[in-house]
């Protein structure tokens, strides 16, 4: 079989959202789901599926309720990228605080900030959930 010759490198990140997957698994049409989540048209829902638009928080919660899947899992890729970006910013804030030092804030507040940042970065409690 020709398929087994040489295997390509197949690593990539999660997709921005899995709305289409869960809609199709439920056997629903775009019109049905757009009615359920109160989207204006099925075109609007289609844009959400293709990640051309990001739904509002209200629509995201409606999706969670409709499919019975947590928002973090429905928008797994987006969740992951936002999480990574936030961790990156926390690192930057920590280093900025260390370099600029305690000029404005009271000592205890400054210490608490650094302690909290260190704790969060150590924990890295960002759940990455697959759509299964």
């Amino acid at each position, binding site marked *: *079989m020709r398929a087994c010759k040489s295997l390509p490198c197949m690593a990539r990140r999660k997709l921005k959202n899995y709305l289409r997957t869960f809609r199709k698994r439920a*056997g629903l049409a775009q019109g049905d789901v757009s009615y359920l989540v109160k989207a204006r048209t099925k075109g609007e829902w289609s844009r959400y599926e293709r990640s051309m638009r990001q739904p509002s928080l209200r629509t995201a919660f409606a999706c969670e309720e409709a499919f019975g899947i947590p928002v973090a899992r429905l928008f797994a890729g987006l969740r992951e990228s936002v999480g990574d970006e936030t961790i990156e910013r926390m690192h930057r804030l920590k280093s900025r605080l260390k370099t600029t030092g305690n000029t404005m804030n009271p000592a205890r507040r400054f210490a608490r900030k650094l302690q909290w940042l260190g704790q969060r970065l150590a924990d890295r409690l960002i759940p*990455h959930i697959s759509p299964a």
Partner: protein
Amino acid sequence: MKKSKSLSTILALDLHPGRFGYAVLEDSRELLDWGVRRNYGGQKPWRITLIRKKLSSLLSQWEPTLVLLNEVPRFSPQIQRIATVIKKEARHRKLPVRVVDKQGVKSAFGLGQQITKYETACLLAEQIPVLHWELPPKRKIWESEHYRMSVFSAAALAMAYRSLR
């Protein structure tokens, strides 16, 4: 920074003269999307544009890391044309394309025995429950193949590729 688990996405295509069935699998087991895209009618250049358009929408949405095609029959210029367009588009996006032959699929599902397309589809519907309600009724000898069988053929390609790796 916490690294995400790397995933692989396979886009399997079952080519027919007027349509292609597709199945998108993540990590070779999670079925993300499936369906049939038609490219009937129109003049040759327009038909090729239509195929490219329909394929590129799939590629942009699912960002596959591998494209699988079924074996192209030697005596079908229409299918060969579609395969050429798909290979060109995949090369443009730097995606590897693999061809899985009929024998590979049969050996993956039949375990050495002869197996029909419908039996393969039934086995797939058992393995992937979301496909169960898509299973068309068994074809009578005087009927032509149901268009939804392409979806099962495409999914079978991906499963066969996984089992033969």
